[in-house]
Structures are given as structure tokens and as C-alpha cells.
């Protein structure tokens, strides 16, 4: 009996997922249209501009891909954590440290090109990893929820990196803007892969990370254990999985990817560390992971769409009277819509409907009897 029932349920899940994304999209578009009309613009024009900004030319498409890279990489960093039940909300902070470390090593160390990039990115990853070690230890040995600690450490990272840039680096540089480090050396720059655009090899790194994670979860014993730890801790523990080690690993992998992402952003796009360059980048990653429900392959697609919206919104701001926060607002509406528990909603509605039908039947029956 339960077999057949579950079959229905699986079909239901697929249906509900289709509905979820479809419905969310429609509602978001409608609300977005209202938002745009309220600002005195034509939604169709705005949409066209956004589309043009994202796909209109090679350069514009390049912008989409350029934004896709950090979305993807940070989406993966978040997905790794969420999948295992770890709330790493500190991605923003880990990105900041990664960016800072990569920038410093990028201008202060002299190495052959490829090696230099490698050093910077790995060091950036390690700095992210070290920064997540603190909340990890607090969680594992003192049972302090990482939800709070990682969140708070974001602010510390933002302010501390700014302090370091200001205090330590400002005297020694040829640039007088105290809020950024000097440019990294040419040997540390991640090259552009599509000429005439801002798409650097960062995108390839991000894709490689996503595919690697997909591979790890699908084909390796470590991935198998991490999945089980995330889905049923006691089951994994009884099975002999070293749970503490797994958790620590998840924290560290997530932190490493986030830190490395900070590094490749600095080396591939900004070429120096601006304070606050990570602003919202980490949160975008978290939202991407949420929408993709922590599925590595889905993260790739969501990161792409997210990147297109980012590129499109910048274009929209240039061309129309609309503010790019309109797009931000629309994106958030979409996240909100996707977060709704449709299954629950469905059941409630279905139940109310059955109730009404029964009442009608009862009334009809009553009439028939009289």
C-alpha cells in the first residue's frame, strides 16, 4: 500500500516543483510590472532592456557570465553547507578575507604567472577556511549555533579588512585611495577568456568547482557520507561515520570555496581589494543555493539566470529612469515566492475544497430526500 502511495507523492513533488517555479515566476513578473509601472515606465520596455543588457551583445552577454562566476561559486559554497545541515551564513566574511589575502599576495609576491595565481587562490581559500574554523569549533565543541556566529563574523571581517587596508597598507602604496590595495601584479591576474568581454577564467574555475562537487556527491564515499550526515545524523553515526570529522569538513570546504571565490574575484575582475567589494556577493550565493535547493547542477542554472538579472539590471539603470534596486526587489520577490511551502498550501486548499464539495453534496442529498 505504502509503495503506491509514495508513488503518488513523488509525482506530487515533481508537480509541486514545476508549479512552484512557474507560479513564482508569474507572480514575480506581475508584481515586478506593478513596481515598474509605479515608477512611470513600461514593464515591457524594462523587460526588453534587461534582456538586452543580459544578452544583447557579446560584451553584454559577457557581463552576464562575469556575474555568473561568483554566483555559481558561492552558490556551491552555500549548497555544500546547506546540504549537510550547516547554516554557513558567513560566506560574505569568508569572501572578504579571501579577496584581501589574494590582493595582498597578488602585489607583494613575485612568481611566474600561473603559479602566482594558484598561490593567491589557494591562500585565499585557506583564509576563508581559517575564518570558518572558529564558528566550526564553537559549533562542534561548545554547541554554539553557527547561524549566529557566522553571521556576526561577517561584520568583523568587513571591518577588519577595511582596517587592515587603511592602517597597514595606506602608507606604502602609490595609490592614495586608502580604501583599496595596490593593483595586483600582472602575473597574478586571472586572464580574460573571451576577448572584448569581462569574462575571466574565473568562470571556468567556478564551473569546475560545481562539477567537482557534483562528482563528489554522486560518486565518492566521502560524498555519500556527507549526504547521510546531512539527511540523518543519527543514522550516519550508528553506521560508523565520523560525524564530527564530516561536519568539520563541510564547514571547511564551504569556507575554502567562499574564500577562493573572493580570491578569483579580486584577481579576475577588480585586480585589487576594495573594501566592501564582497557586499551582497555572499548573500547572492546563499539565495542561489536556496532557489536551487542545494543541487549542484541546479546551482549552475540559477547562477546563470541570477547573473543575467544582475547584468540586465545595470543596463536598465543606464537606459531607463528605473533604479537597479527595482531588479533587486524583483529578485527578492522571486526568492520569497519560491520559499513558500506550496505542498502545505495545496493540501489546505484541497481540504477546503473537499469540504465545500461535501457540503454541496450534502445539500443536494438533503433536497433529494425532501
Amino acid at each position, binding site marked *: *500500500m*505504502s*509503495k*503506491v*502511495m*509514495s*508513488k*503518488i507523492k*513523488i509525482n506530487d513533488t515533481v508537480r509541486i516543483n514545476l508549479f512552484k517555479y512557474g507560479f513564482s515566476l508569474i507572480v514575480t513578473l506581475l508584481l515586478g510590472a506593478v513596481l515598474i509601472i509605479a515608477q512611470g515606465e513600461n514593464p515591457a520596455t524594462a523587460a526588453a532592456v534587461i534582456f538586452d543588457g543580459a544578452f544583447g551583445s557579446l560584451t553584454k552577454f559577457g557581463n552576464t557570465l562575469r556575474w555568473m562566476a561568483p554566483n555559481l561559486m558561492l552558490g556551491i559554497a552555500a549548497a555544500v553547507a546547506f546540504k549537510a545541515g550547516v547554516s554557513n551564513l558567513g560566506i560574505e566574511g569568508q569572501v572578504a578575507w579571501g579577496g584581501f589575502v589574494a590582493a595582498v599576495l597578488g602585489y607583494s609576491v613575485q612568481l611566474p604567472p600561473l603559479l602566482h595565481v594558484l598561490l593567491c587562490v589557494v591562500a585565499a581559500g585557506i583564509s576563508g577556511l581559517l575564518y570558518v574554523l572558529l564558528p566550526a569549533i564553537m559549533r562542534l565543541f561548545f554547541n554554539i549555533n553557527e547561524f549566529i556566529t557566522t553571521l556576526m563574523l561577517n561584520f568583523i571581517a568587513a571591518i577588519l579588512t577595511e582596517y587592515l587596508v587603511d592602517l597597514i597598507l595606506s602608507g606604502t602604496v602609490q595609490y592614495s585611495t586608502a580604501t583599496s590595495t595596490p593593483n595586483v601584479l600582472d602575473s597574478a591576474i586571472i586572464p580574460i577568456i573571451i576577448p572584448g568581454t569581462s569574462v575571466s577564467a574565473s568562470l571556468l574555475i567556478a564551473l569546475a568547482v560545481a562539477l567537482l562537487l557534483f562528482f563528489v556527491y554522486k*560518486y*565518492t*564515499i*566521502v560524498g*555519500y*557520507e556527507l*549526504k*547521510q550526515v546531512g*539527511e*540523518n545524523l*543519527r*543514522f*550516519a*553515526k*550508528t*553506521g*560508523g*561515520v*565520523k560525524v564530527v570529522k564530516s561536519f568539520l569538513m563541510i564547514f571547511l570546504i564551504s569556507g575554502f570555496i567562499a574564500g577562493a571565490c573572493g580570491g578569483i574575484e579580486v584577481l579576475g575582475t577588480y585586480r585589487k581589494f576594495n573594501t566592501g567589494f564582497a557586499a551582497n556577493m555572499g548573500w547572492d550565493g546563499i539565495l542561489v543555493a536556496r532557489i536551487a535547493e542545494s543541487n549542484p547542477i541546479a546551482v549552475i542554472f540559477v547562477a546563470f539566470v541570477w547573473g543575467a538579472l544582475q547584468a540586465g539590471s545595470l543596463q536598465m539603470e543606464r537606459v531607463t529612469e528605473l533604479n537597479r534596486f527595482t531588479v533587486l526587489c524583483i529578485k527578492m520577490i522571486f526568492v520569497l515566492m519560491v520559499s513558500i511551502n506550496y505542498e502545505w498550501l495545496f493540501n489546505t486548499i484541497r481540504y477546503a475544497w*473537499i*469540504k465545500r464539495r*461535501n*457540503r454541496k453534496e*450534502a445539500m443536494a*442529498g438533503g433536497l433529494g430526500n425532501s
Partner: protein
Amino acid sequence: MSDEYILQMKHIRKTFARLVANDDINLDVRKGTVHALIGENGAGKSTLMRILTHIYKPDSGEIWLNGQKTNFKTPLEAARAGIGMVHQEFMLYNNLTVYDNIILGFEEKHGGIFIDKKACRAKIEGICEKYQFNIPLDEKIKELPVAMLQQVEIVKALYRGAEILILDEPTSVLTPSGIRGLFKAIRFLVDSGKTIIFISHKLGEVFEIADTITVLKDGKVVATVRPDEIDERGLASLMVGREVILQAEKKDHPFGPPVLKVENLSVRDKEGILRVKNVSFEVRAGEIVGVAGVAGSGQQQLVEALFGLRAPEPGSQILFEGNPINRATPAQRRCMGIGYVPQDRLGAGVNGNASIWENSIMGYHIAHGFSSKWLLNHREIEAFTDRIVDQFMVKRQKNSDKVRTLSGGNIQKLVVGREFLQENKLLIIEDPTRGIDVGAIEFIWSKIIELAASGVGILIVSHELNEVLQLSDRVLVIYNGEISDGGRYREYTEEQIGLLMLGGKLSDVQGDVQNQNQ
């Protein structure tokens, strides 16, 4: 009076997609009787009861209450009309008091707004007095033992005005004394005119308490009989359609050296309370040692310490094949050849959201591994999963099905199969047959006996006394963290062991020992 049908379910049919869960079921329940509903897992009992309580709507069929056709639309209306259900898993809020749990949703009110606490309390106290329930109204649910919670559920149903009380496998969570208490309460309720529908797997209980027995099989009623018209074997064969011998068939075989030796083991629970007190025993190769005891006597902490999930107190000694393993992790113990079937099937035994193969290799991947240290070898995984599925007759469609789609019995077979097929030297098994149907119980019992005969040492910790007595070469009784000797196979009677479980002394028991030395 007793000839009057309080409830009639007529030609009930309910289908889920292609599956017919209830097929033309007729159920006539007389007022003031205990009507037992028995059947294997998946026979359609739960569906029928969900239709009765209006959680499901039947495809066709009618429900008549007190000679009148009903037309309820919601579970609430059914509850108001006097159909109350005590679910197998209690529906209580842990952080609320007993009182709050009982009145929740059915409060007496002043002017429709304020809760009339006095009136509520008076009503509850009236019920408790009338039906002789003694429950602490102001204690929080989480402070109370399981047997008490069941009473709370029953009082809750009565408070809501239940005339027909459905008890879904009420004894599965109770100790022998709890069961006696429950049966007393049931008789009292019936004497005061209430009607009980009693759902159970356990034939002995059904014979003890029921006035009428309806047997369901594959969604159909196969028989409705009075207990004096049939015996346990007959009933069992009606349920599963063949002769089931609920008597384990044990053969004598010699035991080897001890595989597990426990000396002066003491264990504290996570609150720091000493739950296992200076316990010593051993399990020899090929021997089945059963630990009987009332739930909460320290079994959980004992098993956790034995499997490395909880650190024992200093001075304790756990030896596996003569080597101390106090500090070994579960992974190390698995590698040594210790298997474990946990009590909490869905919580610790499987990951319901994962596939059958993912569940099959948990532990195996550590103790035995695959040809590659890092990669999952799907050919080997499929092979091992198929072995479990074939040898333990797990009914499934494919190995990638999610485990939660299986029935309880099949999940248990999967867990047991996983642990049994790993060539372990010692198996720690908690409640191997909890909440599964007769056919599956018989099957798992026979596998346990088979495994012991092949030289594996087995420690069974079960809340089912009969199970311990049927399977064990040696019985240990745990009471309040201390272990006493419960004799060899069939040395003591069920009553004598029962006395030990409740804290009686061996000297009290030994007076009338019937030594059936084999």
C-alpha cells in the same frame, strides 16, 4: 443493549491510484464491546480507521452511527459525534501540561472568549474519577512515562466526548504492567458503556481483551469471529493465509569462547544520571543472550556503551574477543566485526529520504569497503543490496527507491539484512521485531537463530518479553540499571521473569523454579 450496533461501516471501498486499500469492507461494532481489528501491515486497518475518523473520504460506502447514516465532512465533526482515536504515536505537546493537552481545541469557555479553567478541570477530574484514571494534570508531558501518556490520550479522547474509542496498537509502547493497566482501563470503559476498537498485531492480547475479532487481509475482511470460536494458530493463519508458528524453533548447538565480555560496566546518560550500574556479563560465540526489562531500565545506555555511542564510566571494561574496546569508535567496532540493529528504525536504522542502496551500504562501506577506497563502486553496491533484498525478502521495486516508501516490516528486514550479511562476530540487536507483522517477525526470528547457529554471538535487547524468552539461550533481566540472571532457555516462566523485570528478587522467584534442564 449489547445487540445494538453502535457503528456500522458498509461496503467501504478506498483506492489509492491502482492500489485497493479497502475493498468492500463491512464492519459492525456492537455497543459496549471491545472489537479487535487485526491484520498484517498493509492489510488496510489504518486506512479503514482513517475513513472512520474522516481523515480520508471513502470512494464508496456508508458509515452508520447509532442506526443513522452519517454525513460528516471533517475529522472534527466525527470527533464531536463521539469517534475518538488514540494514535500509535502520541499526539501530545511535550512542553504543555497534561491539562492543557487535554483541553486543547475543546475548551469550555466564558462567553465564548475566555477559557473556563475551572469547568475544564472539573470535567477532566470527573472523567478521571469515573473511569479510574490517575494522571497528574499539572505535570508537563515530557516529564511523564509512556504508559501515562497513553492514559492522557485516552482521557483526552473521553474529554472530547468519545463514545467509540479507537486504540491503534496501544500495547506496542507498554510494559507488561502497563498492558495490564491498559486492559483494566479498557474493561472499565466497556463496562461503563463505551465501545473500543482495538487494533493490534499481538494475537495473545487480542484473545485476552476482545469480544469480537475482525481479520483484515489485503484490504478485505477475511473473518469476523468471537475469540472462543478460534485459537491463536487459526487466527494467525487467517491473517497471513498460512500456518504461522509463533514459537521459535531452536536447535541445540555448542557455544564457542566469549566474543563479548562486559565487566563492571557503568554508564551515565546525557543528564549525568547513572543508568547502568556495575554490570557484568558475557556473550559467547553462537549464543543468543537476551536482555529483558521494562522500558527505561538502562537498556538504551547499555547498548550505546557497547556500540561506542556513549563513553562508559571509568573502571568499566568492555572486551571483544578478549581485547578491551572501551575507547573504540563505532567505525572501529564495525571493522572488528560488531553489528548493530538499533531500536529506532527510522531515526537511526535508516535514512528514509535516501535510496535503498544508500541505506544498504551504511556501515558496510566502512567495515568492508569497496574495491576503491574513495569511489562508490555501483556494481558492488548493487550486488550487496541485491543480496539483502533476496535473502531477506525485502519487497521493493528497484534499489533506487526511497526507503520511506517501504512498509515498516520491509524496512526492518533491510536493516536486519544489512547487519546480518556482514559476517559479523557479534550482533547487538534492539527490538528486532517492533511494530512489524507476524510473517516478518517469524522470518527475522528464524534468521537470528540461523545466524547464531553459524557461530555469531548475539545480544538481543527487547521490550517484547516473549521474544527474549523464545530466542535466548540465556536471559538477563535489567532492572533499574542492574542486571540479574534470568536463567537459561526456558528455565524460568514468563511470570517469573516478569517479576524480575519489576524489581523482584531471584530468591522470590526461585521458590517454584521448574528446572527444565535441557
